[in-house]
């Protein structure tokens, strides 16, 4: 009997596919998310939109907060650590969170290195903007990838850009000759073994979710159309006028992304989405954090 194997980590991420992972900041929000059909919740002190507003250093959520949320729901609970913060990750593993997000939404703790995630039994998800970044994170042991997008903006444009870029890079690799793979791996800063695996599979070797700016059922469906395996919704649910309705509608949109009649039905009567921000006007671009 073996725990914490690569199969067990990536297999767990497979269970999230076709689902929505929702940011929550209280036990009550976690229950709303679970009842709406979320496949997991991300336990946070503040949603990204509020982290952006508050400024200063954003750290791992308080243990009391994460515990409160873990006790409230039966679905998996994720939590974020700062990039490179090995000790925050060890603490969350000891606490028993189901998945750790080594996230650019928090202030990085290390300006050169990410966590060596192979050394942990708990699986990790990391953000990426292109294939090279995704494969570097997988090389470090990430069992799941998500686009970075631009968190807390309610603006889907960056998530679209990152998903398109990853998919475009994958398509490129699948048509490359084997002779070209080493030079290409060097160009994108990724291990050649993983580039070869991408060519063989025609996709990333782990689950790839969309994140960072999804605010409506249509946004969620768009990300699925572009090839996402599922969707993270951060501020988009609990910054909307009617979180429960919005959450239910986004869950339906992720299952029925290729059914326009159903998308129309779930997009009616969802109330007002979160207010959005123009990416050009941001003081902090969280997506630039990560190496």
């Amino acid at each position, binding site marked *: 009997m073996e725990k914490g194997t690569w199969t067990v980590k990536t297999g767990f991420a497979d269970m999230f596919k076709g689902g929505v992972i929702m940011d929550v900041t209280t036990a009550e929000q976690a229950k709303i998310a679970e009842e709406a059909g979320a*496949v997991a919740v991300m336990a946070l002190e503040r949603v990204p939109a509020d982290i952006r507003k508050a400024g200063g250093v954003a750290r791992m959520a308080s243990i009391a907060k994460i515990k409160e949320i873990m006790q409230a729901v039966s679905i998996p609970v994720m939590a974020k650590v700062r990039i490179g913060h090995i000790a925050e990750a060890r603490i969350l593993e000891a606490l028993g969170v189901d998945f750790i997000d080594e996230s650019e939404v928090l202030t990085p703790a290390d300006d050169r290195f990410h966590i060596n995630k192979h050394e942990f039994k*708990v699986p990790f998800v990391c953000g990426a903007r292109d294939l090279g970044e995704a494969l570097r994170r997988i090389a470090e042991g990430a069992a799941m990838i998500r686009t970075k997008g631009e968190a807390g903006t309610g603006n889907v444009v960056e998530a679209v850009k990152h998903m398109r870029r990853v998919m475009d890079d994958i398509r490129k690799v699948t048509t490359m000759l084997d002779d070209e793979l080493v030079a290409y791996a060097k160009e994108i800063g990724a291990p050649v073994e993983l580039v070869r695996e991408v060519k063989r599979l025609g996709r990333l070797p782990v689950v790839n979710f969309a994140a960072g700016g999804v605010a409506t059922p249509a946004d969620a469906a768009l990300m699925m159309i572009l090839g996402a395996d599922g969707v993270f919704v951060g501020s988009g649910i609990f910054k909307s006028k009617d979180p429960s309705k919005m959450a239910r509608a986004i869950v339906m949109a992720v*299952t029925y992304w290729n059914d326009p009649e159903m998308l129309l039905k779930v997009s009616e009567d969802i109330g007002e989405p979160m207010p959005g921000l123009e990416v050009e006007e941001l003081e902090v671009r969280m997506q630039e954090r990560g190496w």
Partner: protein
Amino acid sequence: MMIGVLGLQGDFREHLWALQKLNAEAIVVKTVEDLKRVSGLIIPGGESTTIGRLARITGIADELHKRVIQGMPVYGTCAGMILLAKRIANYPNQYSFGLMDIVVERNAYGRQVESFEVDLPIQVIGGKFKAIFIRAPKIVECGDKVEILAEYNGSPVFVQQDNLLAGSFHPELGNDLRVHEYFLRMVGVKYAGVH
């Protein structure tokens, strides 16, 4: 004959790939109309609360009840097994299809850090099988008509009740297709063996 994999949420593509490797004709089931086309159904791993909710509001749950009574074979893995169970011991208010005479306990082995893989002896498929348990459920009560096909640490983890098959673990995540073959035999599909 067509096999369906319930595709509301979860790792349904892995089941689809496994069936395709066995040359079975397989489709993803997302609507009542899809369900009407199939002769057997696999309910995949995923979140049982999510899949249950979507099956109920789309009418798939009602149609599934009708079909199972008519004898359609159904195989549930992990979340799928939870949904087939008549009751969930530690979450008694959670919705399930209630088709099988078993009571399950969700996340019975603990949270994700306790997830594991183990070689499990399963006689009906010819012996040792690499079983992957992910936040897995355990069967805590079985009715008289339920046949136990495999146990782990003294608890049933793979069972059959007439046309219904259920397991705690995920054969779709490995390359060993014998459990899927066993289910296809239940459906009576003609297929070309792989090993």
